């Protein structure tokens, strides 16, 4: 498997933990040179330490993508360290939304800022660099199954992730002619910092609604999402663009219920 991304400069946001860290490590293992950005500088540094065995390189950056100057800074840093980016994974995002009537303006603005505005701005800078680089590229935006189907109490989070899916489709149409592919991932329930509270609290409503309705019957590890991202960024997916790939054990396919024991199955 090594070498699929050999020598390709990559930027991964939110790379200090969870899906972003797993993606950075997977990329490095496949030969990519990764700029691992996270607002938690220690987390990013730990990712770079874990990636120490290569074969790709990994440089940690402590930076918050929601700050206006950061997207352009990340691209400039990538160019300085490794060359023009050919891969961009817009993974940074926040969770923990509430129902519409319980959402204050400050929370609303925060979700829009981090999950949409900053992702759009990172994508814009990445696309400009990829077009200038002239070698094409691959952008993967991390959406969510909640951007495909509703789930109680996830209002602005769901809406922000649906926006990510829409943006992905539009960017695919705009930049396909330049050899730049743009896809999204819709993770189901993954064991990350974002969901840790739900597991730790043994949140029965959430866990029944997610694991209980997941045909494969379990939550996934971040590495399983990273495998899908690596596929979409590799030449194995050279004709795939504009797609949102669910990595959800089947959750978004249906309102799943296991067969009762009395039924065939």
């Amino acid at each position, binding site marked *: 498997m090594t070498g699929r991304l050999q020598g390709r400069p990559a930027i991964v946001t939110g790379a200090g933990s969870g899906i972003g860290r797993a993606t950075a490590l997977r990329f490095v293992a496949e030969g990519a040179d990764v700029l691992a950005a996270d607002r938690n500088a220690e987390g990013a540094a730990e990712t770079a330490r874990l990636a120490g065995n290569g074969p790709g390189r990994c440089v940690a950056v402590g930076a918050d993508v929601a700050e206006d100057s950061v997207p352009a800074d990340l691209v400039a840093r990538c160019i300085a360290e490794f060359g023009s980016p050919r891969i961009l994974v817009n993974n940074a995002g926040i969770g923990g939304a509430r129902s519409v009537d319980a959402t204050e303006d400050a929370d609303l603005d925060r979700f829009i800022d981090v999950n949409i505005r900053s992702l759009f701005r990172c994508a814009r800078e990445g696309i400009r660099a990829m077009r200038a680089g002239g070698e094409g590229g691959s952008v993967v935006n991390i959406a969510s199954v909640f951007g495909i189907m509703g789930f109680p109490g996830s209002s602005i989070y769901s809406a922000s992730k649906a926006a990510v899916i829409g943006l992905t489709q539009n960017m695919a149409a705009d930049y396909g002619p330049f050899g730049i592919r743009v896809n999204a991932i819709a993770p189901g329930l993954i064991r990350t910092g974002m969901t840790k509270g739900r597991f730790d609290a043994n949140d029965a409503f959430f866990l029944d609604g997610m694991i209980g309705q997941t045909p*494969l019957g379990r939550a*996934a590890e971040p590495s399983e999402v990273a*495998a899908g991202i690596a596929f979409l960024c590799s030449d194995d997916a050279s004709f795939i663009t504009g797609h949102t790939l669910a990595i959800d054990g089947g959750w978004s396919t249906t309102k799943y219920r296991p067969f009762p024991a009395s039924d065939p199955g």
Partner: protein
Amino acid sequence: MGHQGKVAIVTGGGGGFGAEISKQLAARGAKVAVVDIAAENARRVAGEIGGAAIALEADIGKAGPVREVIAATVKAFGGVDIIVNNAGLSYPPVKVVDMDEDLYDRVFEANVKSIFHFTKYGVPELDKRGGGAIVNIASTSAVKPRAGNTVYATSKAAAIAFTKSSALELARQKIRVNTILPVASMTPMLTGMFAADDGSRIAAMEAGIPLGRLGQPKDIAAGVMFLLSDEAEFITGVALPVDGGWTAG
């Protein structure tokens, strides 16, 4: 993305997508039953692969031949882990009002009933191995149709629904079921469909695809390899377009 030691059945393996899927599976260490209604084509592809492949002639729209394919594969290789329902039937553009009912039946038999047969009779073999993976080849025409292709598109929409529903039935048996949606691709099926055309229809299709080209068998085979592999072990019930962005906008 190895498939070392796995046994795969690939329908329509004698050409186009199926030939490339068969070869890539074999290159990753799988044993492959190359199934085709045209025996000569199946033998040619199996011959190119060598000892890791057998050629089987079958009309996969019929239960009897499908059961024979499964039995022959088990006899040759000891079991079945992977089924790729790739064989399909298309036809030159024709409006519904001008189409023969017989062609409708043949399209649904080849494109939908074949998946039913291979699921019904193949799953017990996958169960014996403790699980497995199925990939059904549908088409972007199911979600973004073109005129003159109504019955084909409808059969492929059925294939997507079959994939998602059967994924739910089989998930707890550790059998994953996914589907690929290719856009128009450079295969014998496409050249056969447009044999009477001066090339302008194919050129128009190409112009409408954001990545600016038609699909190639290697594009589709790469997507199939991913969905069949352990890399996709949390992915079931999805419809993955391999279409250069055709369905995105």
